[in-house]
């Protein structure tokens, strides 16, 4: 039974991406001074060569690549989006407000147990204690000027 050889297609795709990154590094280095360009240019060339070698290796030596990710991709995406939103809103709405919203969102994303009033109350109390405690430690203990934003 002969089929398509089992190749590291993800690795090949990733290495192709690195060829593009290397090319971009080389292209944008044209505007730098000689001193500023020599190092990134060297690394850019190295990146292109390694990436091409990686593609060639994966092509000539068939083998399984990385296993597909197990579990819910939807939850993964939700976590990434929540954290991205948190980072973007930190300055705009303030540390406490953005932190509280993100904390609750992440709690919803990470929870696999059935929500009961008791559990919800317990988790929210813990969240409030953690947020408040860390705010006090960083703001007043370590004197970190946390962003205030439009809210708090």
């Amino acid at each position, binding site marked *: 039974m002969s089929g398509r050889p089992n190749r*590291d297609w993800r690795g090949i795709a990733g290495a192709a*991406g690195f060829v593009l990154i290397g090319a971009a590094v080389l292209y944008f*280095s044209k505007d730098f001074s000689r001193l500023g360009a020599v190092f990134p240019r060297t690394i850019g060339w190295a990146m292109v060569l*390694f990436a091409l070698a990686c593609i060639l290796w994966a092509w000539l030596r068939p083998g399984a690549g990385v296993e597909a990710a197990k*579990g819910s991709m939807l939850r993964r995406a939700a976590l990434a989006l929540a954290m991205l939103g948190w*980072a973007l809103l930190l300055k705009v709405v303030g540390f406490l407000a953005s932190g509280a919203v993100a904390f609750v969102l992440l709690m919803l994303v990470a929870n696999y147990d059935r929500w009961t009033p008791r559990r919800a109350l317990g988790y929210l109390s813990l969240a409030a204690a*953690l947020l408040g405690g860390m705010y006090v430690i960083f703001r007043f203990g370590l*004197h970190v000027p946390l962003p205030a934003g439009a809210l708090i």
Partner: protein
Amino acid sequence: MPQLDFLISAATPFNLLLAVAGVVAGTVIGALPGLTATMAVAVLVPFTFGMPPASGLIALGAIYTGAIYGGAYSAILLNTPGTPSAIATTFEGYPMAKRGDGDLAITLACIASVVGGLVGALFLLLLAPPLAAVALRFGPVEYFWLAIFGLTLIASLSEGSLLKGALGGCLGVILSTIGTAEVGGDIRYTGDFKSLLGGIEVVPALIGLYCVPVLIDMVATADPHLRLKEKLAGYRLGEALRLACGSKWNVARSSLIGTVVGILPGAGGSIASLVSYAEARRSSPRSANFGHGEPDGLIASESANNATVGGGLIPTLVLGIPGTPPDAVILGALMVQGVRSGPALFSVQSQIVYTFIYGLFIATILMLPIGLLIGRHAFRSLIAIPKAILVPAVAFLTVIGAYAVQNSENDVLQMVLLGIAGWGLSRFGFSASPIVLGLILGPIAEAGFVQGTLIGGAKGSVLAEFFTRPISVAIICLIVLSLFYPLVLQRKRLPAMRRQSGPAQ
């Protein structure tokens, strides 16, 4: 017996109290991702201004050594180095915790940290002036080769494919060139984003690359974050001591590497732990287990990073050149106290400096009971916390930790974006460690390369500048040895492996 007098002055109840408080405060701050040992020392330094100089220094030394050890907690339990010095601790510590040996990993990290810290302090006590003189002979070219030596570690950190590791390393180095160039002042790869002018800060980057992918995968399934082999058996101190004794050469070598790297100004605990980890992997008979929770790797990393505490204080006290970033803060505290660092410090103000060194010994020894106690509670707490609380709490720590480095929202955004990119790259088979290594070593390599080229050009021969200086030649030999020794070893072991597999077939 002046040395005995110094020891007695270091062991007064007040100094002992300061050592305990310093180790506890340092350990807690170091355990929080993003809060480095430098920050721990910097934040707490004002409290020491009203104290006698020796006591103030003991408190700072205790905070420093505690913070370096504290970084191991989050490295082991969350796969996020609490401080950059604990990067290599994640490689074995987290897999150990995942398979149910988190308690053992923490105890082992504590023992290794104590031994490493004591070795560093011993070198500080006995060999400070001559070692500092050697460190002064390191020029840009030597730093360049040292960075290249560090980059050869990619071979050890690449899981599966050396080429993918090399690509990750290149990506890290390219990321390190973003922003304003240190030599020449070019603005590079910022894409007109003002927020990138300062470049990519290492600490938020490594928080993102190590921690965010763990969070992303943590929410994907209902499985518990960490497992336990059996019900909590205690500290597993006996088991950890047996492992540490069985790995005594590894401990000695790693502590020595940590001390030497600590002496080199600007190198620091992260490089020390990575170099020691790689050496442990190369020389271990169980090198195939590395990356899957091998205690030898954890021992190497932790003994090396704590040895940099004593090592880094050598140029700080003898030459007034800080060996590691926290030493710069300690140097500032010395100045505030009216203590002038320099070779004369060990004779003119010997009372202060030797009391401090003995205080550092005491603080390091105290780290054993304190570290074990805090570590056990940290492990128990983390296992008991449900995912619905653990995930947002860790995410919260990553955000606040990334922000606190420079009080910058941009760092938080960079941290999250790099974390998401890191998760994406891992799906293509590219792991985070080579990227982090490139990010850390890139600036050292570039500065050394460009400055070495300029100096060589001015002298008439760039090649002679790079290839004929004695220390450079020694490092080049180490690079060649480290690259080819594993191949030679593999060749030697091949017949034995064939013999073993023969009868089975």
